[in-house]
């Protein structure tokens, strides 16, 4: 936070039940170092108690507060106002795409949770399966250990849904598993989880991806789904070849 004060116009998508959608504007004095979610919460607290929006942890561990900010998917609790507008500027806040709207800024992410369940995505990983440093996806050589046991940590993917909202394919194919889900399958590896092969190797699985890499561009949590989908394709081809030879 700083002493600096900006005036910013928040233009918020509104929708209640069967009523038509509209945009409401609220002019707020903000500190540019504040996060977008702080502004949205203040609109609810001081301007309009009918507004609904999703949020929980306010520090990017839960993934609840994904929205579209000036047409780009953002996790609003870690998006500083300074980084997405200017003094006197506008912040257009809309719900994520490719999910049904529950109301205002809230969407129903059942589609993603159901698919994450289908690939048995892990919420907590051993440290070796989810390395911390470097761009290399392979585990580092020295994984710290806890008295001989592996440390566990919460997965990088916070299931915020931003990748599915940004994906140009998810909008046209509602049964497409989606980037977060394919990334979760890749992370587990087909070699150790052969039952995942049929889930991902199908029309609504990884062949639906057009390699737009929008998922990777908007991911707030270091998952890099685009890279993982390409790697999963290599894994699938490898497994298919192996099975073909075994059958023969």
């Amino acid at each position, binding site marked *: 936070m700083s002493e600096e004060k900006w005036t910013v116009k928040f233009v918020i998508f509104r929708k209640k039940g069967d009523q038509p959608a509209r945009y409401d504007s609220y002019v707020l004095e903000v500190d540019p170092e504040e996060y977008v979610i702080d502004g949205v919460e203040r609109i609810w607290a001081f301007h309009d108690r009918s507004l609904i929006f999703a949020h929980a942890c306010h520090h*990017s561990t839960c993934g609840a507060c994904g929205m579209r900010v000036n047409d780009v998917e953002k996790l609003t609790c870690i998006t500083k106002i300074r980084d997405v507008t200017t003094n006197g500027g506008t912040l257009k806040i809309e719900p994520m795409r490719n999910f049904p709207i529950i109301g205002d800024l809230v969407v129903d992410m059942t589609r993603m949770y159901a698919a994450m369940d289908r690939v048995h995505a892990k919420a907590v990983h051993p440290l070796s399966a989810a390395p911390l440093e470097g761009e290399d996806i392979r585990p580092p050589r020295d994984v710290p250990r*806890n008295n001989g046991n592996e440390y566990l940590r919460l997965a990088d993917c916070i299931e915020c849904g931003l990748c599915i909202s940004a994906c140009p394919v998810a909008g046209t194919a509602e049964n497409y598993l989606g980037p977060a889900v394919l990334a979760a399958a890749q992370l587990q590896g087909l070699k150790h989880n052969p039952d995942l092969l049929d889930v991902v190797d199908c029309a609504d699985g990884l062949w639906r991806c057009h390699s737009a890499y929008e998922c990777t561009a908007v991911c707030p949590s270091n998952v890099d789904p685009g890279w993982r989908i390409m790697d999963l394709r290599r894994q699938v081809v490898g497994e298919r070849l192996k099975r073909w030879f075994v059958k023969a």
Partner: protein
Amino acid sequence: MSKLHAIVIGAGFTGVAIAHDLALRGFAVTVVERGPIVNGTSGRTHGLLHSGARYAVNDQESAIECIQENQILRLIVPDAIEPNGGLFIGITDEDMAYREKFMEGCAACGIPITELSPKEALRLEPNLNPKLQTAFTVPDGTFDPLRLALAFAASAKANGTVFHLYTDVVDLLTDGQGNIVGVKAWDRAADKRFDIQGDIVVNATGAWVGHITSMAGISVPITPTPGVMVAYDKRLTQRAINLLNKPGDGDIVLPQRRMMVVGTTSFTIEDPDYVPVYEDHVQLMIERGSNLIPALRQTKERGAYMATRPLIGASAPGRSISRTFKAYDHKETDNVEGLVTITGGKATTLRLMAEKTVDLICKKFNLTIPCTTAETPLLSYRKFYVN
């Protein structure tokens, strides 16, 4: 006989745990929450699964509750917890003066600790302040607040609980003689207003309990006590790191996913609906946090946030108030039938708070149904969305 219907106001940690416990004990349950699951204090927790060691000197009642509940939660909800343990590190001579009391307190509360030499501690956690004089291992953990709550909510839902999210309680329904028989609700997602009748209303709104009790013309002595926390963009330890001293500001640094979270400050306010994140508090967090882990200073801020604890007791400031929770039957305290308020406590003791509250509710209805939440593994948090 048809089931008794309980209306739980609030889907924070206490509300979802109570809903789960009530559903297991055979109640029909409706949860009414004005936002999504854990949007208030619970979601914005630090995320420390307390071993109890922090309270082992000053508040042994809390400490014993913590260590017992810590062990239970590890078993019933594994998919929201990093169970890596914690360290208490002593750096200054003043910290070292606390060492004896700390060891005695942990022994008295049954908290298993092991003292490490500075060398051993730095081998386990190379980013600790190299000036540390001693370190103790404790069974702390870290949890994901949303997924912890969703696991309780998913299990409640599987046992028939109905959730009305984004729905305000705008008033209480009375029988004309001041007794509570339900709530008036406003579903803000669909912009619909409706009444819900119930046999008992449970006010589990934490720092906001006064908003609900005032609808019945009564009050509960709690002090909304916010604190600021700051998340940094790099994971520098695997364990929760605590300062070996009496509880103070910014003396806990936690790993979570790829982050470190430093907390917290403590001050009191009147209305918890919106509290800004103060710049001086953020500065204090980096100063205190980097006393434990110097490399935090080279790490980028990722988020800064504020949560309002509901501390029991009306007058004394912040930390000196007991952290233990209280459940009030307003028939006994205010001669208002049909309303129970639960407040106080902390995330680590959510299950126990629910057990005590539901015990009290069962007693009101002359029921003797034992609590089974300590032995019942929770469903995956995703089952809240997927049947």
